[in-house]
Structure formats: C-alpha cells, structure tokens
C-alpha cells in the first residue's frame, strides 16, 4: 500500500522487535521489554500481537487471525485486513494453510507444525501481577525462580473451592524455569502449548513485553500432586460437527433461549463437517 512500509511498521522498529523476540526465544518464558509503538488500533485490540506479527511477516507468508477461535469476529477481520493491505500477504481461515497465526483467547484445535508460528495477543504478561503488584518484586521473583507465592494462590483456591478456580490464563512453568502467563486462553488449551512443534510468540502492547516458547519446549500447568491439572471442557458434543474433544462455546440459537454447544474453533468445526462429521443439531441447519 502507498505511503506505508511493508506490514506498516518501519524497518528499524521491526529490527528492535526481532531482537526482543530473539532474546525471548533464548530465555523461554522470560518477559523481554520492548519499545512498543503506537498502532492504528486501540490497546486491547492486540497491538502487542500485531507488532510481533508485523516484525516476523514475510511476503511469502500466509496469515490467519482468530479471536475466541473464530476468524470472522470484528477484531480478527480488522487485523487480517490490516495486514492484507499493508503487507499484501495471503490470508486464510484454514489453520493448516497458515504459516503465521495471530490469536486472541484460543489455540487452534488442529495441531500446529514446525513450519508455523503462533502469535498470542497478551493483555497482562505478568502471571504474578494479581498477587504482587510491584514490578520490582515480581522481577526479583522471576530472577530467583521464587514462585512460592503462586502456589499459595493455588492452595487458597483448593482450600476455598476444592479445586484450582482459574479457568483462563492458567499459569504455566516454561522449560522448568520461568513462570508464564499463557494469555487468556482457556485452561483447556494449556496442554497444547507443551512441546508444541510451532514457535510460540507472545506480545503485550500496553505492558510493552514480549516472551516466547521455542518449539518442543516443556510447558507445565502448575498444580498439586493430589490435585492434578485437568483440562476442563463442557461435557457435551459439538452440535454441528459432533466433536467431543474440542473446546465448546455455548450459544443461544433462538428467541426462546434454546442453547447450543458448538466448537469455538470455527475452522476446525467446518473442516470436520466437510469431512462428513455431523452433530445432533446440524441436520435442521442443512435443511434450511
């Protein structure tokens, strides 16, 4: 597009961000500060993720953008359009066809490969922020690997609710060393981060932090031996594709409050239906 550099950001900024990414990859789970730029989008719209994506995107890449698992939400559509215009890259909704996937709130159900990169949009990069408000203190805790406080929070949860009550942004240990916020993905997605073949990059625009999980790195959800981490999902099958192993959204489908559980990953659901799978509620729709 006229008047803009490839993928909007100037090359110097991209180099600065790539240096931060390299550092982040070298120390898995460690938050690297970077000089976050103003983007033509408000914070909370994924400015951190967008800057990371802009810095790694090449002309040959194929970009997929999802928000809550869907490619067609306002946020996903506008980011995808932004890069289609400023970088002229191919875009796709197919997880398998993408080389770069920017995401908010989900990890695709289709397993990612070594030749893919996933970029997470992160509102709060500091997993200890709610327990220890001082950045100085949390930095010391990370430097010394002192994470007793996080376990105190888990202890409090089990004491109060009989289980760990964190359902999103469930804290993980990366490479057995750094405590990390996986971004507000459902805890259900946490196991997908463990030893993922794809490179995982995390960008927090407002908080000006980048962190990373290199391919095939250990990512463990914190837990107790006698209260092991469990990836919880609604105990239903997808109404459209019948999947029983995917993360589901509950949607209201008519004005009488009829509810339906459907895959939150729309591409995964569509791919399954194309392959002939169907759920209990898919017939009426097909008949329309």
């Amino acid at each position, binding site marked *: 597009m006229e008047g803009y550099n490839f993928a909007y950001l100037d090359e110097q900024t991209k180099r600065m961000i790539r240096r931060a990414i390299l550092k982040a990859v070298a120390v898995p789970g460690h938050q690297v500060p970077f000089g976050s730029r103003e983007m033509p989008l408000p914070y909370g719209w994924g400015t951190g993720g967008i800057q990371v994506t802009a810095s790694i995107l090449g002309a040959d890449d194929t970009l997929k953008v999802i928000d809550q698992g869907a490619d067609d939400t306002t946020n996903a559509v506008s980011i995808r359009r932004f890069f289609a215009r400023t970088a002229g890259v191919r875009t796709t909704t197919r997880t398998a066809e993408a080389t770069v996937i920017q995401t908010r709130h989900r990890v695709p159900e289709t397993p990612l490969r070594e030749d893919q990169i996933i970029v997470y949009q992160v509102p709060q990069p500091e997993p200890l922020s709610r327990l220890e408000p001082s950045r100085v203190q949390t930095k010391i805790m990370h*430097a*010394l690997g*002192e994470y*007793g*406080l996080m*376990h*105190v929070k888990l*202890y*409090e949860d*089990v*004491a*109060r609710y009989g289980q760990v009550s964190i359902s999103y942004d469930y804290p993980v240990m990366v490479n057995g060393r750094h405590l990390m916020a996986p971004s507000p993905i459902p805890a259900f997605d946490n196991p997908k981060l463990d030893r993922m073949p794809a490179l995982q990059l995390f960008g927090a625009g407002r908080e000006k932090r980048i962190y990373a999980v290199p391919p095939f790195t250990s990512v463990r959800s914190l*837990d*107790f*031996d*006698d*209260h092991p981490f469990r990836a919880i999902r609604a105990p239903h099958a997808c109404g459209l594709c019948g999947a029983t192993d995917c993360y589901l959204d509950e949607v209201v489908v008519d004005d009488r409050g009829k509810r339906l559980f459907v895959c939150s990953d729309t591409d995964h659901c569509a791919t399954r239906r194309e392959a002939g799978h169907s759920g209990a509620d898919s017939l009426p729709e097909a008949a329309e």
Partner: protein
Amino acid sequence: MIAPGALLSARGLALSFGRIVALRDAAMDIWPGEVLAIVGESGSGKTTLLNVLSGNVRPDGGTVAYRSGSGAVVDVHAMPAPALRALHRSEWGFVQQDPRRNLRMNVSAGGNVGERLMAQGARHYGNIRDEAARWLETVEIDASRIDDLPRTFSGGMLQRLQIARTLVTRPSLVFMDEPTGGLDVSVQARLLDLIRSLVARLHIAVVLVTHDIAVARLLADRIMVMQNGSVIETGLTDQVLDDPHHPYTQLLVSSVLAA
C-alpha cells in the same frame, strides 16, 4: 572466622548512619539450640545488629559467618543474593515485632503457614494442609481457623501465627526482634511460654532482641548487653543478671528491679 562448634559468628562489626555510630566492633557467637538475648536500651543498636547478623543490612566492616546444615561455612555478606534468600526461606527464620510485616493478611492462616513449605517445593496439597493444621495447634490456634484470614485474629494470635509460619520448615536459626513488644502482659506471658517450649523441643537457636530484661531472663540461655553500638557484657543469663559487672548493666538490671 567461625568459632569451633558455633552456628553463627560475628567479628568486628561496624556500621554508622552518617554521624550516628550504630555498631562498633561488635562480636558474638551463637551455638546450635541456644537462645541468645541482645538487651540494651532503645537506640543502643540491637535491631541494627540483628539486621546485620541476618544479612539484611550490610555493615561497613566486619564479618558474619554461618555454618549451614550441610556443614559448609558461609560468609553471610559475601554470598550471592539468591543463596541468602534461600537461606532465609529454609534454615533461617525472622520473627518481626509487628506480625503484619511478615504475614500475608489477604491469605488464609493455612496458606500463611504453608507458604514456606511450598517455597521449598512441597507439592502435595493434603500434606501441606495437614502440616499447617498441626502447626496451628502447636501454636495454640484452633485448627478450625485454618481457612480464616489473619485479619480476624487478635494481636496475640497473629504473633503465634507468624511463629508457626516461621517454624514450619524447622529452621536451625531464628532471629526475633521484640517478639512480645506491643502485646498485653498476660498475652506476652503465654507467648513467651510458647516460644520457650517450642525452641527447646525443636532445638532451634534464637537470637532474640529485647529491651525487656524480664523477657531475656525467661527465655535466654545467654545475654549480650549493648550500649551505644558496643557489646559491653556477655555471659550466662543468671550470671549477668544476678551479678552484673559493667556499671551500665547494673543500671539496666536495677531499673527492672525498681519497676
């Protein structure tokens, strides 16, 4: 550097705050399982000495040596910060006069007691909870209060909770700064009894700072008297209190008798 058999030895400690000399050539030794009281009037340098012994404040001169559980002797002020912090979490404890400085007021009593266990790698919830409940009982807090927040506790209970939180990892050395200060006399007496029986049973060495000679008499095996940043007299508690040599100690002891 460290006296034979001693747990902690300090030599030649000096520290000034501007023109105020808080420590001058202070030395001390503490042996495993003994209670050493540091007494002296307000401003004599007791708290400063405790902070220097525990590595929290760096002296202008002098050394502090500690014999760790592994047998290795470490220079407290030369060791890397992570190692010192690890020591504070495991073999050492620090009991503050104000328990609120040490406790997490928005975390349950059980969580407060369990924290050090978890910081040391305990990952079995049931065991952590059982141990916390046992410790609450040990410090005479009903185990039914395990899920209550400290803010619902009385001053005496808070101090006992702080002691449980500190002793749960069975440290070999605990620093205490006026642990009974600010409490009612009857509450003080009960707390002193508890501290005395616990450290004896668990064989914990205690460096106890107090301005109260009566507290020292009740708890301490040995006493160190400080005046203007110097250690002026050291000895067995009964000896020092019943037969004080230094004129300042005589004054200190007699003022208690007069009180």
